[in-house]
């Protein structure tokens, strides 16, 4: 039984990969993502962290040149090093917030959908309350209350995207829970927990994975937005949004300060979006041709 299961999974994966591979833009997204992940992981090997906080006042606002590939910022710091090390923060914030939001959303959404009735009502009414406040304002208020730091930034962004997640997972689970095999499992007297984790969630995985991938992209943008208005992380840490927030006044004299971090935000966010788009097509069984 177990072996059979494994083999089936294996061939499912193969089939999925075959379809994903056909989508050239998705592969492009995957490649960009791989490069950025490498940059983040090997940042210290590419350029030491010390370089990105080192200030040389005399070298400030230099346009890109052989010793400073992306130029230098207003304090005379090497922008290339800052962008490279910034990859860590942006990726970290994007992935961590999405995963936390996913976990919380999954527990809330799945219980709401599965138990229905009172549980569903209570959870969804609370979610409604959160949905009524625009996410960015919610984040702003939370950061104001907690103070500025990497941890608080993560909390603020996560809170703002839990409601949407919960709703999505609830609706996905609702669809799955109505399927025959769940009915069957229930009639055998399988425990609720087991049904949810064994049958419902795995089968609801497709849309959830796609949504999470796309969510990472949104979270990277939200984090950049909050940092841009000065509510991100503590200096001198080089988060991409924070790099941009000081750059806007140099838009004419040093446009590269706005350009390079901006391009990296866009590329990272885009790579998740492209992969997510590819996943949607590859995971959709109806799209078999």
């Amino acid at each position, binding site marked *: 039984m177990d072996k059979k299961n494994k083999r089936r999974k294996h061939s499912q994966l193969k089939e999925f990969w075959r379809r994903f591979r056909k989508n*050239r*833009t998705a592969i492009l997204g995957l490649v960009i993502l791989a490069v950025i992940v490498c940059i983040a992981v090997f940042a210290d090997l590419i350029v030491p962290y010390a370089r990105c906080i080192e200030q040389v006042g005399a070298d400030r606002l230099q346009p890109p040149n052989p010793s400073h590939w992306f130029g230098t910022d207003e304090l005379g710091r090497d922008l290339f090093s800052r962008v490279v090390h910034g990859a860590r923060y942006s990726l970290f914030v994007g992935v961590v917030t999405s995963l936390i939001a996913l976990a919380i959303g999954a527990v809330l959404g799945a219980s709401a959908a599965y138990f229905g009735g009172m549980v*569903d009502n209570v959870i*969804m*009414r*609370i979610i*409604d*309350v*959160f*949905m*009524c*406040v*625009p*996410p*960015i*304002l919610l984040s*702003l*208020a*939370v950061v*104001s*209350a*907690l*103070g500025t730091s990497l941890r608080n930034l993560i909390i603020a962004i996560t809170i703002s995207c839990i409601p*949407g997640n919960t*709703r999505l997972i*609830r*609706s996905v689970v609702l669809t799955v829970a109505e399927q025959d095999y769940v009915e069957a499992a229930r009639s055998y007297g399988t425990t609720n927990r087991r049904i949810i984790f064994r049958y419902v969630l795995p089968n609801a995985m497709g849309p959830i994975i796609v949504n999470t991938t796309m969510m990472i*992209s949104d979270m990277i*943008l939200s984090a*950049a*937005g909050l940092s*841009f*208005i000065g509510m991100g992380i503590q200096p001198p840490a080089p988060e991409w*949004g924070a790099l*941009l927030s000081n750059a*806007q006044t140099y*838009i*004419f004299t040093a446009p590269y300060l*706005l350009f390079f971090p*901006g391009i990296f*935000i*866009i*590329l990272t*966010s*885009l790579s998740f*979006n*492209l992969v997510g*788009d590819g996943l*949607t097509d590859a995971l959709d069984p*109806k*799209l078999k041709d």
Partner: protein
Amino acid sequence: MIPVLLGVSFLVFTILSLTPGDPGSIILGITAKPEDIARLNAEFGYDRPFFVRFFTYIGNIVFHLDLGTSYATRQPVINSIMARFPNTLLLAAMAMAVECLLGVSMGIISAVRQYSVLDRVMVVVALVFASIPGFWLGLMLITVFSIRLKLLPVFGADTLRHFILPTLTVSLTSAAGLLRLTRASMLETVRQEYIRTAQAKGAGERVVIWKHALRNALIPVITSMGTGFGASLGGAIIAETVFSMPGMGTLMTNAIRQKDVPTVMGATLFLAVMFSVVVLIVDILYAFIDPRIKAKYRNEGRGRG
């Protein structure tokens, strides 16, 4: 709806109470005498305990329809809201319109020409725009259209001209979602039995698409507009900040920073009500487009979620 609004008030009131500082010292600054600060706080009723403040606030709304007086301007909150809301509404509405126009039309074309070069290009372009931070796009638009070309204003909300760049900022970054939704929904519909039937009956492609597929495909698109409007409001907040436009977003971001509790509360509740109204309108529209819904509502008595 009432419990939701109560919940929203409580949520926002609690978060704001957790923010450090008191209105008196925020308004008067650090050279102010402590007794002046205390006097101002007492005037605002800020010296009273949390629950007293909360219930007084709710009481004033319920019994006097009074959203309170701003700490910062010392004028009725409703005045500040009414001075700004039309701008935000117009911006959000224009952004929604442009977004629908772009998203839905590109989505249809994409679906009809599935896997063509055009399809891929449109999807990728839309995704690229979805990946651009709103504030970054706004700054770029200002650079090109206001400073280089001197065509459009940098700030303000006096005429429709002032709304063009903010509208583009909001709609371009959010059209991708609608495109993908329309495309997916169209593709799904096309595979439905009745479309096959129509095709089998020999109806032309054009007729199938416009008459049968589109109408059905738009249903999920319209459903998504309720939340889409909320997203537009969120985007409008960023755009208002970048373009120094008097709107709900700038009002609330300022008020949060000044700990102007009545203004934040008033504005949030106001938006929450508006949001609910939009969702209601979308529901009605939905039933109007899809007669099956009516039947469903009648059967279930009450719709879920």
